[in-house]
């Protein structure tokens, strides 16, 4: 009797078992006209002179964490990459590499999460792929998503930041460090109990609202490496300096506590539902108001501004006016004892 509770190698073989899996899990959750054509490639009509195209792979451990799972993340990550590049996200592909023995019930949950988030983000899953590998050859499940979006004319160049100038204001859409600390807390055996959740979310709605109100000069989502990495990229790209103010950073109490306990800096911790934008000083108030009016941006705050000196560098001003340099980290932060 075939074991139908776990993935078998046969599920990746291209035969009857795989077709059944695709129908029972993926098409059931992702169903749309394009996907139902079940052609090798999805045929899309996109009216545009510029298309944004991105891909990302998701290997997160644990698969299920407070505030989300690998499926939700797989959609948010790619949708956000498109959105911060100034594009309206339209279509996604979902390719899974699954380890033999992986429980079907978990796969179903993940597929349901992907579908739910795709619906929130307004994107369609139009094509995909499924592979199964021998036990031990991959860590439960790896997901790759590629995404296509239509670039808005008004947002061309937002990723390059070519118009960023001295005095421009830097805004973060909310609290920092939530995702990284929430996930680390459940992954490690450290035994801290908190209700901290990942901030994992599709940001295209928030970004669209902001773009409709003000001129976005630069935009990035601070994922791996945190806000510090994005600010360093901004400083280097523009050849200007970045000065941010420590008291203006919004850090949730649980994040602050975990960071203090382990010796982490929230500026270096990953976020999956936040965006960093740069706007002219005269548009800063409007940008802030617009973000705060959106459910994903209620804690938006101005964190700093661009300066002419300290080219390529990011400086943090603390409460007493002292300054220190914020660098990109070379690897992950490590819990320290001293």
């Amino acid at each position, binding site marked *: 009797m075939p074991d139908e509770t776990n993935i078998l190698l046969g599920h990746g073989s291209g035969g009857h078992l795989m077709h059944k899996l695709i129908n029972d899990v993926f098409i059931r959750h992702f169903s749309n006209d394009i996907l139902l054509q079940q052609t090798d490639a999805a045929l899309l009509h996109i009216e545009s002179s510029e298309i944004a195209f991105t891909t990302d792979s998701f290997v997160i451990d644990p698969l299920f964490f407070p505030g989300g799972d690998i499926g939700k993340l797989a959609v948010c990550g790619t949708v956000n990459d498109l959105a911060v590049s100034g594009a309206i996200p339209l279509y996604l592909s979902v390719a899974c590499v699954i380890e033999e023995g992986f429980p079907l019930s978990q796969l179903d949950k993940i597929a349901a999460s992907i579908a739910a988030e795709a619906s929130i983000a307004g994107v369609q899953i139009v094509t995909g792929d499924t592979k199964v590998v021998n036990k031990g050859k991959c860590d439960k499940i790896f997901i790759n998503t590629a995404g296509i979006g239509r670039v808005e004319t008004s947002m061309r160049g937002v990723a390059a930041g070519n118009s960023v100038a001295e005095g421009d204001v830097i805004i973060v859409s909310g609290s920092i460090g939530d995702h990284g600390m929430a996930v680390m807390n459940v992954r*490690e*055996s*450290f*035994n801290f109990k908190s209700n901290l959740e990942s901030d994992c979310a599709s940001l295209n709605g928030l970004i669209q609202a902001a773009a409709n109100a003000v001129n976005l000069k630069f935009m990035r989502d601070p994922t791996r490496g945190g806000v510090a990495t994005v600010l360093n990229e901004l400083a280097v790209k523009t050849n200007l300096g970045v000065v941010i103010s420590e008291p203006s950073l919004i850090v949730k*109490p649980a994040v*602050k*506590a975990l960071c*203090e*306990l*382990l*010796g982490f800096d929230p500026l270096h911790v990953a976020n999956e539902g936040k965006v960093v934008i740069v706007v002219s000083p005269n548009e800063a108030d409007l940008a802030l108001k617009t973000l705060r009016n959106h459910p994903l941006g209620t804690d938006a705050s101005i964190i700093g501004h661009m300066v002419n000196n300290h080219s390529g560098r990011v400086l943090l001003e*603390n*409460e*007493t*006016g*002292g*300054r*220190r*340099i914020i*660098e990109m980290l*070379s*690897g992950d932060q*490590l*819990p*320290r*004892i*001293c």
Partner: protein
Amino acid sequence: MKYIDEYRKKELILSISQKIQKRSVKDIVLMEVCGGHTMAIQRFGLRSLLPSSIRLISGPGCPVCVSSQQFLDQAMAYARQPDVILTTYGDLIRVPGSVTSLEKERAAGRDVRIVYSVLESLDIARQNPDKKVVFLGIGFETTAPATAAAIVQARERNLGNFFVLSAHKVMPPVMKALLDEGVKIDGFIAPGHVSAITGTSIYNDLAEKYKLGVVVSGFEPADMMQAVLMLTEQLEANSPKVEVQYNRVVHIEGNKMAQHLLNEVFVAADDVWRGLGMIPESGLKISPKFADFDATKHFNVPVEPSTEPKGCICGQILRGNKTPVDCKLFAKACTPDHPVGACMVSGEGTCASYYKYRD
């Protein structure tokens, strides 16, 4: 956060800064010997709040930085044993031994795990009876009692697969060693949490024999500024003594229970400090009574002789005699991404700090 935020208030810090500015002592060097203090100075930008006539230097207070190459090479040799799970505090993972690092060993497939508490190591030992769990004991008197407690627990529960490789060290011998070598220090900012365990009598020699002021300081910016103020006041009055700034946590007698654990499980021994060489009676080795849990007594794993990296002048830097810019390797062969010596290894190290602020 209670008992933290109140000591980070701007007005308090600035007012002490002003008071210090008014002191008449000139050209004094104050040394802190605690990684946590090094971090606090950096994080809160305390140097910019002090007059240029007061210089704060960092001594060898970072337990990760001063762990010897031999210790690391030994740890890696254990990690390579097929039935060993190596457990360690996080910041040791990237420290380079002679050839490799624990991080690289983990990448090569060895079972190396980061723990927040040594008690997690005990749990891992209980859950994996067919494996040998080795815990890397680094840290000073704040952390050593935890290791001691774990060893006592292991004995009480008859855990036969839990071992500790101890590189624990104690503070006062290295403080005296630096002074004996002639390093110019006018006062010590003493480590608050070490002192919470040991009490303050361990510093009496420094005040009485060496005539140096010692102020035990907390870790918030207001604490450290107050400690600096207390030291400058001592210097002005020419009355060096041992004082406690951090009296909400530090008692003169320290923590007796923790001291008892230390004395039960550890014995003082000569130890090698990376960059400084051998310092007598500065290390804590596991007492013969608990030899069952001493990794060095259990494993017989050959370790290649350690080689000190050529050109590294960490020893001089740790003594405050030279600065990183004097080192030929600095920012070239030796960077935070691929550190050569102790001072670059941890984010708190002198060279790592200098690297951050280089032009």
